[in-house]
């Protein structure tokens, strides 16, 4: 399906855990989400000095692999991501584009010396997936404290926000979808 949202699991997380994310993604973006296994050559993006993985390089690899297939995709990885000028990123998206990447690395409680909590991890991942996909739909960061599109630079900030966009951001997604349908002739 051309307009499907592909959640590509290149992490060690079990598919059954990620299945809980499919429904919220479908509901928020109004397109069916599909969970698929995936593999990624993360080694090519490794920076020996930083001991981190360049998310921009990984995103380029994802785009090259997916070719011209329609819809949007987000790839879930486990490695610690960075963009060159910043110390780390939770994820990266092609703004108004087709692909995004998100990492579980800094979403895990163990990273912060806390006990493992899989439920919390999936909750955080769900929010970050919707957040990065939101950018692929052309959404900017939102000032609303609880909106999923609010910028989060600490994991605690992710915990504070909800897994859904605020009404204004939701409205933006709706408008984007209407424009897209109009352009593709589905809703002339």
């Amino acid at each position, binding site marked *: 399906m051309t307009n499907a949202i592909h959640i590509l699991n290149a992490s060690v997380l079990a598919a059954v855990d990620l299945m809980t994310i499919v429904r919220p993604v479908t509901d928020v973006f109004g397109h069916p989400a599909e969970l698929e296994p995936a593999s990624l050559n993360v080694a090519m993006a490794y920076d020996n000095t*930083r001991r981190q993985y360049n998310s*921009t390089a990984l995103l380029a690899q994802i785009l090259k692999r997916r070719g011209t297939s329609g819809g949007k995709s987000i790839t879930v990885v486990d490695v610690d991501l*960075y*963009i*060159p*000028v*910043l*110390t*780390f*990123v939770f994820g*990266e*998206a092609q*703004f108004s584009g087709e692909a995004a990447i998100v990492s579980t690395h800094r979403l895990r409680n163990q990273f912060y010396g806390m006990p493992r909590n899989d439920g919390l991890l999936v909750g955080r991942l769900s929010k970050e997936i919707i957040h990065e996909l939101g*950018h692929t739909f052309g959404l*900017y*960061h*939102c*000032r609303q404290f609880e909106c999923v599109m609010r*910028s989060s*630079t*600490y994991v605690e900030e992710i915990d504070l926000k909800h897994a859904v966009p605020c009404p204004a951001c939701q409205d933006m997604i709706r408008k984007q979808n209407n424009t897209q349908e109009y352009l593709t002739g589905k809703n002339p």
Partner: protein
Amino acid sequence: MNNKNSLLIVDDEAIVRDSLSKWFREDGYTIGLAENAAAALRQLQAGHWDVILLDIKMPGMDGMELQQRIREIEPSATIIFITAHASVDTAVQALKNGAFDYVTKPIDPDHLSHLVANALKQRALSNENLQLKERFTEFFKGDEIIGDSPQMKKVFDLIQTVAATDTTVMIRGESGSGKELIARAIHSNSQRKYFPIVTVNCGALAEGILESELFGHERGAFTGAQYRRKGKIELSDGGTLFLDEVGNIDMKTQMDLLRVLETKQFTRVGGNDIIKVDFRIICATNKDIEKAITDGSFREDLYYRLNVFTIVVPPIRERKTDIPILANYFMRKYAQTMGRAITGISPDAMDVLVRYDWPGNVRELENAIERAMVVGKPPAIQMDDLPFQLTEKKKKSRTGSLSDMERDHIEGILEQNNWNISRSAEVLQIDRVTLYNKIGKYGLKKGS
């Protein structure tokens, strides 16, 4: 967050430009990119940028040199240095040259977001501050010094001339002629306008209190001095010290004040610390200071210090053409503040206002109009609304002697109170018998 702010990213590394532009694009910023100094200068000449993120090490012109060039184009530019090569010396130099901040790559994303947000907030506050200053300046252009007479035009010229300098000014004029307004106009048109003008009413304070008021005091300097207190001189640092009724300052304080004027430093009462101050003095007096010097009650050296540039405010009786302008101004002012629908002054009432000599000057005129606005009925102030009735007899009797003034005053009070003896005696604060005696002495009669 659809952001209207703009960022110019100047870095020779494409990967840094791309990373930063992606990061900030998600916040909705308008992004400009420049790979070297020449491209950055082109971008700056083409448009306005709220914040400039600037790499220090670049081939050709480096970031530090580019900062100087940017300042020439846009002095208020907000610049944040980003570099991979941290050095305290470079950071200090960048901040000394006016950079907003300095960060080292890789940057904590939270720090970067807050840094740019703070830079924008500070820029917005600076802009708002400038706008308020502009509005403040405009506000003071329309202050309450009103007059179209040649005498007042001369005063306006003098204010304009002296305001731009830092010269000490002595304003002379009768009580109520608006000396303080002149002082404020000089201050608000001077370089010191963004600092306070501090007024000290020298005539209203006793000797010891005036000293403490001017110089402040340390804790325990005298009985009751429980806390350290800053004096008016200290408070006027950077601004203007306005000494009203300067002719009333006692000899000891005159000597202390002279020392402050000469050295621009002083100590608080009961203190030892020398406090340096930078202020301008404007003083005002309605006294004959020259006579006070002859009498020995005012120091000649202080007089010469204070009397560098003199502005004489003419009494209102010497500029009668200003009376209708002033009266109408006060009428409009009180109509607005009191919410009254009075829109004019009848010709008879205006004639009375113009003929009266106004010993209390503009202050008395303002009070008269304020009272008329209270008792008068729309649409216009009438003669009866004024707090006095001018008669030819009153005018003729004004010789200036004490007995003539007493007679005029008693007659005026009697007329105001419709010749009610008890009420008039109460206003005059004398008993009824004394009032009867005065009426007999001056031959006053009702309706005469």
